[in-house]
Structures are given as C-alpha cells and as structure tokens.
C-alpha cells in the first residue's frame, strides 16, 4: 500500500464533497433544525397575538377569581423572563435578591418587573418581557348579542379587537362556563378559567360538606418521596440522579446520530464509485493506483467528510447549548451526559466499525452498478434492512436491556448502533469486549469481501458480475492483486 496514493485519493474525495454548496447546506441543516427546535416554541409563543377578552359573570362570584388566575399566569411568564435575565446578567447574590424583590412587588407582574429592573439592572441592557397573552376589555353594560357582533367586526384603532367572551353562568351550587371565540383553537383563556373556577367550586363544595379546606389541601399535597437506585452503580452512589437518566437518552441519541452519520457518508461512497464508473474514470485510476489504495483512499476521504460533518454538528450543538444555557435548566447535565469520555470513546469505536462495515458494503454495491437506477434497485432491500437498528434504538429508549434490544445488538451489522444505545445501562464487561471483537471481526470480513467484489465489479460491472461466475469472481484472483 502506498500511503501517498491513499492520501491523494482521500484528499480528492474529501474536497469533492466539502467544496460543494450542497454539502454545506446539508451540514447547516442539522444545527439549523436544532436551533429551530429549541427556539420555535418560544418564537411561536411570542408571535401569537394577544387575546382580548370580555368577562360576563352572571353568578357574581367567579369573575375576580378568573382575573386573578390570568394575572398569575402572566406573573409566571414575567418571572421566567426576569429569572433568565438575572441568570445571565446578575451575580448570584443579586440574582436571589432580584427574584425576592419581584416576588414581593406589586400585584401587577409587569410593574413588579419594572421595579426589579430599576433596582438591580440600572444601566444594563433592558429586559425584554414577553407580550401579555390575555388582555381583558371593559365591556360593562354590554350584552352577549352586542359582544358577539363586536367579535365579528373588523378591529380599528379606536376600538381594539374582541377575540373571546367568557360567560360564567350559575349551575347548581357552582358555575358553568360558556366560551365564545372566533378561534376555538385558542384555548388560553378557557383553560385558565376552567382551572380557576374548578378550584373555587371545589373549595366551596368542601365548605358545604363541613370540611376544613386547609386540611384537605394539605392532604392532597401529600406525596411519597420516591428515589431511584441502580444496582450497577458503585457503592454509596447507587441513587439514580437526573444526570443518570439523561445518560440513557444520550446513549440513544448518540446511536441515532451515528446511524444518521454512517448512512449519510456511506451513500457518498456509493455515489462516488458510481460516478467513477459512469464517467469511466475508473480504468485510468486503476493504472495509477492499486485497487487497495483506491478502496482505502475512498474510505479515508469520505471518513474525513464524516468527521467534518460531526465537528460542525458538535461545534454548533455546543454553541447552541452555550446560548441557551442561561435559559435552560440542567444544560450542564445534558452536556455532561454527551461529553462523558466513556460514551465518546464508544461513539468513536462504533463509528469506525460501523463506517467500515457500511462504507465498504456501499462501495462494493456501487461497483456492481452501472447506473443510478441500478443502484436504487439494489439499495432498496439494503435500506429496508438498515431501518432495523432504528427500531432497536427507539426500543432502547424504553428499556436498553430488553430481549429485543439485546438480541438485535448481537447481529453484527447492528452492533455499533445498539451497543452504543445500551452502554448507559452499564452492560457487563464481557458483553462490551465481545461486542468490540464482533464489530472488528465483522468489519474486517466485510472489508475483505467488499475489496473482492470491488475489484471484480469496478471493471466488469454489475451485469458481468451477476451473470457470470459471481462467486467465482469474488474469490478467484482474476483481477490484479493489489
């Protein structure tokens, strides 16, 4: 093997992919998708227009309760914004004091936020408060018919829109809620009102029954303390922490990432060989480099592409994590679960084994095809087979040690993905060693067979290979030994 040729071929392969716009678009897709996933709920929430509502309380008992519940919901939103601000811009002592001040401040949450900011963030960047979601309109003296017409009329500058009307009607000892809205999908008000009125009706029912509301509430809040323990953890530290739980999810996510990565780049190998066959470059290449050098060069080059993909994805994930760390609880735990050296080493080993197995297989398949159509036909059953690890990864999220997952993990072509998913459950050492031996052995066997098929297919093509002496051509040394 001449490493110079291997390097040249690898470099060409690497540059052929990484110097294309399509590659960077696909690279950017994952972080963009992740960023959208992380920010979309907040964006959607903030983009939602405020709902202007009216209250008609025919009972005379529940309107203020609903108003208080709406204010509480607003307080929760504003407090989260103040807390996020304090986490990123105030020191730990100020943080606690600021939140305490907010909690003690005026009943209007927006005013409480303004007071807190004036006390602790003078001269600092302004607090960007989320828009109020529910705004009550004073419709004193207007009946429902009039309000229904208002809901259907176009909004104007001197008459803000009316989006919903909540009518609280007497119903036995309690109340019934009639909710009128042009947009019935918008349940922000009715959900809050329902909970608040239900809570009040419950209190009233308890009182009517002569029960002490305080005692009942305390009884309701009684919960046993539940702790999770793992027998495989070291003595004295058996309790399962949140970080441990995240590890399980991280194992499955890394397995999924590996699956996505391996198949993205293995497809590149198939396309690469197909291109060389259809454009007839292969024969020129065969006189310039040995078959083994071509094979190794391609695997290394596209492996480099995979590494570039992974590096960009990892960097963008860390960057995104750093951005949201002030807003997201437990980011440190999530990061620690993914950055666990044991998981990273396992990921690297599984990637190498998985990539070699599937990369070599796709290379060999590519060498047997003479056109994209042929490749698609040949790939269909292979792709169906390759969906199996996905089922295993999903199952591993529930129980990484289930019979289904452990059995599937011993199928060598699925081992890299499923062992990675199982690793957080700390399988016995012998299983890990056996899995490594199985992966390495299978990768070597597949490489050996793929090299034979590649040699036969690279020049002869699929038709000759399948029609004449298929097995014989794999094993007979008819093509130049490299």
């Amino acid at each position, binding site marked *: 093997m001449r490493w110079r040729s291997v390097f*040249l071929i690898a470099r060409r392969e690497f540059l052929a992919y990484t110097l294309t716009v399509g590659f960077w678009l696909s690279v950017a897709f994952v972080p963009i998708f992740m960023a959208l996933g992380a920010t979309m709920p907040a964006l959607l929430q903030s983009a939602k227009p405020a709902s202007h509502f009216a209250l008609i309380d025919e009972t005379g008992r529940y309107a203020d309760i609903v108003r208080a519940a709406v204010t509480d919901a607003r307080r929760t939103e504003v407090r989260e914004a103040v807390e996020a601000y304090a986490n990123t811009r105030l020191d730990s002592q100020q943080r606690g004091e600021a939140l305490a001040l907010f909690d003690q401040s005026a009943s209007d949450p927006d005013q409480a936020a303004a007071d807190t900011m004036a006390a602790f963030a003078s001269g600092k960047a302004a607090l960007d408060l989320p828009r109020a979601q529910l705004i009550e309109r004073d419709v004193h003296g207007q009946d429902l018919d009039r309000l229904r017409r208002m809901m259907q009329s176009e909004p104007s500058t001197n008459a803000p829109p009316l989006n919903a009307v909540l009518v609280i009607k007497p119903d036995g000892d309690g109340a019934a809620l009639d909710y009128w809205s042009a947009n019935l999908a918008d349940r922000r008000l009715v959900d809050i009102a329902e909970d608040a009125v239900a809570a009040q009706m419950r209190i009233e029912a308890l009182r009517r029954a002569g029960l002490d509301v305080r005692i009942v509430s305390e009884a309701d809040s009684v919960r046993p303390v539940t702790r999770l323990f793992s027998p495989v953890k070291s003595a004295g530290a058996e309790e399962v922490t949140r970080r441990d739980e995240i590890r399980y999810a991280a194992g499955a996510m890394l397995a999924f990432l590996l699956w996505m990565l391996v198949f993205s780049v293995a497809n590149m190998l198939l396309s690469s060989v197909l291109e060389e066959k259809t454009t007839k470059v292969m*024969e020129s290449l065969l006189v310039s480099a040995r078959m083994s050098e071509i094979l190794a060069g391609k695997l290394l080059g596209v492996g480099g592409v995979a590494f570039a993909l992974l590096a960009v994805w990892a960097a963008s994930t860390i960057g995104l994590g750093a951005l949201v760390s002030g807003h997201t609880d437990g980011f440190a735990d999530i990061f620690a679960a993914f950055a666990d050296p044991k998981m990273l080493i396992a990921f690297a080993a599984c990637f190498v084994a998985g990539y070699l197995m599937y990369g070599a297989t796709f290379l060999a398949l590519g060498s047997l095809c003479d056109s994209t159509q042929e490749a698609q036909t040949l790939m269909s059953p292979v792709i169906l087979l390759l969906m199996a690890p996905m089922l295993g990864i999903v199952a591993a999220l529930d129980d990484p040690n289930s019979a289904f997952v452990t059995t599937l993990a011993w199928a060598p072509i699925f081992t890299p993905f499923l062992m990675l998913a199982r690793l957080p459950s700390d399988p016995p050492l012998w299983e890990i060693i056996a899995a490594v031996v199985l992966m390495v052995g299978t990768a070597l066997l597949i490489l050996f067979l793929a090299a034979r098929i590649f040699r036969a297919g690279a020049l002869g093509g699929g038709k000759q290979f399948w029609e004449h002496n298929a097995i014989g051509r794999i094993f007979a040394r008819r093509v130049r030994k490299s």
Partner: protein
Amino acid sequence: MTAVLELQNVQKQFGGRPAVRGVSLAVEQGAIFGFLGPNGAGKTTSLRMALGIIEPDAGSALLFGKRPSAESLDRVGFLPEERGLYRKMKCEDIIVYFARLKGMHADAARLRARELLQRFGLADYARRKVKDLSKGMAQKIQVLAAVVHNPDLVILDEPFSGLDPVNQSALEDLVRDLAAQGRTVIFSTHVMEHAERLCDRIALIAGGRKIFDGGVREALAHCPRWVEIEAPKQSDMDGVAAALGAVAERSDHVCDDPEDIRWRLVLPKAIEPQAALRACLSRGVDVRLFEPHRPRLRDAFVQLVGDDDAAQLRTEGAALQGDAA
C-alpha cells in the same frame, strides 16, 4: 533491444466466451507500435492484461521485463478506450492529480501541466471544469493526463476515436513527438490509416487471435497490387493478363467513352505495375487510363484475415467501419 511490453500466449475468457486466444507479442523500446483490429477483436482486453488491470486466464504479461506492479505502472501512461474524467474537477487540477498519483511532486506536476496545456493550446481551459468542455476537448485533456509524468511507455487505446480530423492530426504529432523523445508508444486502433502513417511495427488481431506481427511494409507485402486500365472494348486484356500471370477483371465503372471498358488487373507479387504497362503496349492495347494502386493496410488486413472471416467480422458490426473516416 529490450522489450518494454511482452505478452506470452495470453488467453482470456468472459463468461465462457473467449476474448483473447493465445496472443504473443513483444514491443521494443522506442517503437511506435500499432495494435490493429476491428471492434471486439480483443485489443482492449490484451492491453488490460498487459497492464495487469485484469489477469490472463493463461499465459503471462510482462512490463519492463517483470510482472506489472505499481512501480512499473508508474512508468506507463495509459489512455483507456472508455474515457472519462471527474466532471467537476478543473482541467489543470485533473492533470496534476494523475501526475501526482504517478509519483510527481506537486510543484513539478503543476508546472508540467501548465506547460502541456500551453503547448497544446489549452491554456485558456486550465481553470475550466471538465463538464464545461466538449467531448474532443475533454479527450485531449485526458491524453495530457496520460503523458504528464513523462512515462517511458505510452499506451493509447483507440486514441483517435471521437476526435475531429484536426485533433487527430494533432494527436499524431504528439505520438511522433513522444517517439522522438525515445518513448515507446503503443496504440490500438481500428482505423488503419493512422497506423500506416505512424507505426514502425504493427500487430493485427481479429477474433482474439494475432494474425500478423511485423513491419508495415511486411504487412503490405501480403497484399496483391493491382492496376486499373481503361481501354477500348476489343483490347486483348486476357492476353496481357496471361502474359503477366495476372488476373483481369472487368469493372462496372462507366468510362467517359462508351466504347471503352475499365479493367482491374491483379498482379502477382513479383510483377511491378510498369511491367503491366509494357505488356499492354506490346500487345497494341490503346491505353486511355493507367492507374497503379498501392495496397493499404486495410487490404492487407482483409487479405490476412481471409475474405470469409472479414465478412463475418463485418456482419458483427465491427470490421473496418472506421476506415471510411
């Protein structure tokens, strides 16, 4: 002289069908060697065996006196019959790429690539992608990629196909240049005229068998020469033919004078055309036209293959179609 390439009774079958049946030949250093035959004759398979791309079922191939190896292949420049380049690579880069695969240093390879592009009038195309080139232009780039590393042996498989006459002529010049530099050039073609103009030696192959191996003159010597004569109908051409030991055939050609006829007089090997003219004059034939014909390689090929085999090759859609070009 050292043989730079040698085939020793090589045989190859594909799917039970013989492609090459015991071909032996040796190409000496510094020669321009033509490997001739119709499409499907076994030329490409023989060349692939010579380069070790495929192994013969029987016999052996030697390159520079040894079995083909990565080292010996570094001394070879090869233009395959099935041509192609990476479509998205730039012309200069692709030449450099193949030069480097053949062991050239990066700077030297780039310098040499630019020099070749300049020399062959392709400097303006250096930074263009292959996909933007015409087929002929891309073929020229591939020829340059094959010779960029100054190989001792250049093998060109059907190098003239797909090129227009101007580029065919340019390629012939390149082949002569390479030979003038002391390099050995082997090319295969089914167009005999190129071989006639360029080759020191040729091998004719048909149906997987070598049917001739030698100099061009030697090949032509296998062909009978003939003259075409126009003379009045009553001329004693049979007498002329008998005197020369030749064969006289009446041609369908319509002469300017309706009283005249055109004969084709096929001469024995030892008889010169001048002897035919003298015989006509001595028998009082009023010669209106006398046209001696020099045999061509295609005639030699037909002669060597045999009429029946040649006809069979023609029906296989292969034989000598390119001669018309």
